[in-house]
C-alpha cells in the first residue's frame, strides 16, 4: 500500500518539476505566452486549468477503458476526448455563472480559452500512451495542472519585473518571453536528478 502511494507521489512530483508540462512537453504554450502579463490573471488561468484538467481526466479515463477499448474503437479517442473537454467546459461555465458570480467574474473569461488549450487534450492523450492506471492518471493530471499553473505564475512574475529593464526593441513581447522560458526550462532541468524515474 505504501509502495503504491509512493509511486503516485513520484508521478505527481515528477510531472510538476521534472517533466513540467510547459517547459518539457511544450503543452499549453499559446496561453502561456498570451496570458502571462500579470500575476493575478496568470493565477486565475492556472486555477481554471488545474480544475478542468483534473475533472476531464476523471471522466476520460473511465470512458476510454469502459467504452472505447471494449468496443475496439480506440481510433475515436481524439473525437471523444475533445468532445468531453468542450462539453465539460461549457457546463462548468453555466454552473459557476448560476451559483457563484464572484468566481465567474474571476474565472469565467478563461474558461472558453481552455477548450483550445492543448495541455488539457495533451494530458488526456499522454495517459493513453503511458498506460496509466486510474489513480496514476489522476495524480498525473493534478501534477500537470499544478505544474502548468506554477510555470505561468512564475513567468508572469518575471515579466512584471521585466517592465523596468531595457529589452532590445525587436525582442520585446513574445521574443523575450521565449528566451525566459528557455532559461526557466534550463533551471527546471536541475530537478532531474531528484527522483529516479522508471
Amino acid at each position, binding site marked *: 500500500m505504501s509502495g503504491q502511494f509512493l509511486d503516485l507521489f513520484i508521478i505527481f512530483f515528477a510531472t510538476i518539476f521534472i517533466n513540467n508540462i510547459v*517547459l*518539457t*512537453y*511544450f*503543452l*499549453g*504554450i*499559446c496561453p502561456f*505566452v*498570451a496570458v502571462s502579463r500579470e500575476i493575478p490573471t496568470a493565477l486565475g488561468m492556472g486555477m481554471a486549468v488545474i480544475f478542468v484538467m483534473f475533472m476531464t481526466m476523471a471522466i476520460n479515463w473511465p470512458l476510454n477503458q469502459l467504452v472505447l477499448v471494449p468496443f475496439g474503437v480506440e*481510433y*475515436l*479517442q*481524439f*473525437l471523444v476526448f*475533445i*468532445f468531453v473537454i*468542450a462539453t465539460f467546459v461549457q457546463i462548468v461555465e453555466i454552473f459557476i455563472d448560476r451559483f457563484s458570480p464572484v468566481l465567474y467574474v474571476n474565472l469565467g473569461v478563461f474558461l472558453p480559452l481552455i*477548450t*483550445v*488549450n*492543448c495541455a*488539457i*487534450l*495533451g494530458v488526456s*492523450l*499522454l495517459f493513453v*500512451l503511458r498506460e496509466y492506471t486510474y489513480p496514476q492518471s489522476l495524480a498525473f493530471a493534478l501534477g500537470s495542472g499544478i505544474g502548468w499553473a506554477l510555470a505561468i505564475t512564475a513567468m508572469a512574475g518575471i515579466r512584471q519585473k521585466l517592465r523596468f529593464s531595457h529589452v*532590445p*526593441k*525587436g*525582442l*520585446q*513581447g*513574445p*521574443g*523575450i*518571453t*521565449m*528566451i525566459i*522560458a*528557455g*532559461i526557466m*526550462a*534550463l533551471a527546471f*532541468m536541475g530537478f532531474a536528478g531528484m527522483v529516479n524515474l522508471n
Partner: protein
Amino acid sequence: MELRQTREWKIFYEGFWKNNAGFRMMLGLCSTLAVTNNLVNSFTMSLGVIFVTCSSSSMISILRPIIPPRVRMAVFMMVISTFTIVVDQVLKAFYPTVSAALGPYVGLIITNCIVMGRAEAFAISNPVFPSFLDAFGVSSGYAFSLLMIAAIRELLGFGTMFGMTVLGQWWTPWVIMILPPGAFFVLGMYIWLLRSISGEES
C-alpha cells in the same frame, strides 16, 4: 494581370508571410517547439497540419449554409477531429516509427489554434476555393517556420540534416539544441530577427 496582383496571390501571401503563424502571430506553438528537434518529424508534422487545415477549411466552407451559427464551434471541432484521426491512422499504418516519435502531438493538431482560427476567421464566410487557398497559405507558412527551426536545431544538435551527416567528426553536437530549452531559444532568436528586419512595433 500580373500574378502578384491577383486576389488569390494576396490571400496566399498574407497567410504565408505577412501573418506567419509561427513567427508573427505566435499560434500553434506547441508543435512548433515540440517536434522540431529533427527535420523528418517536422516535415511529417507539417504535411499533417497542411492536410488537416486545407481539408477542414474546405469542408467547413462547403457546409457553411447548413451549419447553425450557435453550435458552429462544436461542428468545427468535429470536422477537425475527423481529419486529424485520418492523419493519425495513416501515420500509424504506414510510418509507425514516425508516429511513435510524434506521440501525442499528432492528436494535438485538433487544438492547434491555426486550424480553428482559419475556420472561424475565413472559411465560415467564404466560398470553397478562396478558403482552401487561405488555409493552404497559412498552413504552409506554418510548415515553413517549423522547418526553419528544425533545420537549426538538427544541424547544431546532431550535425545532420534529414538524418544525413553534414558536419563531420570534428563537430561537437550542441546537446542543448535537442533539449527543450534549445527550442525556446531558437524560436526567440527567429522572432527577434524577423521583427528587427521588418522593424515593426511589438
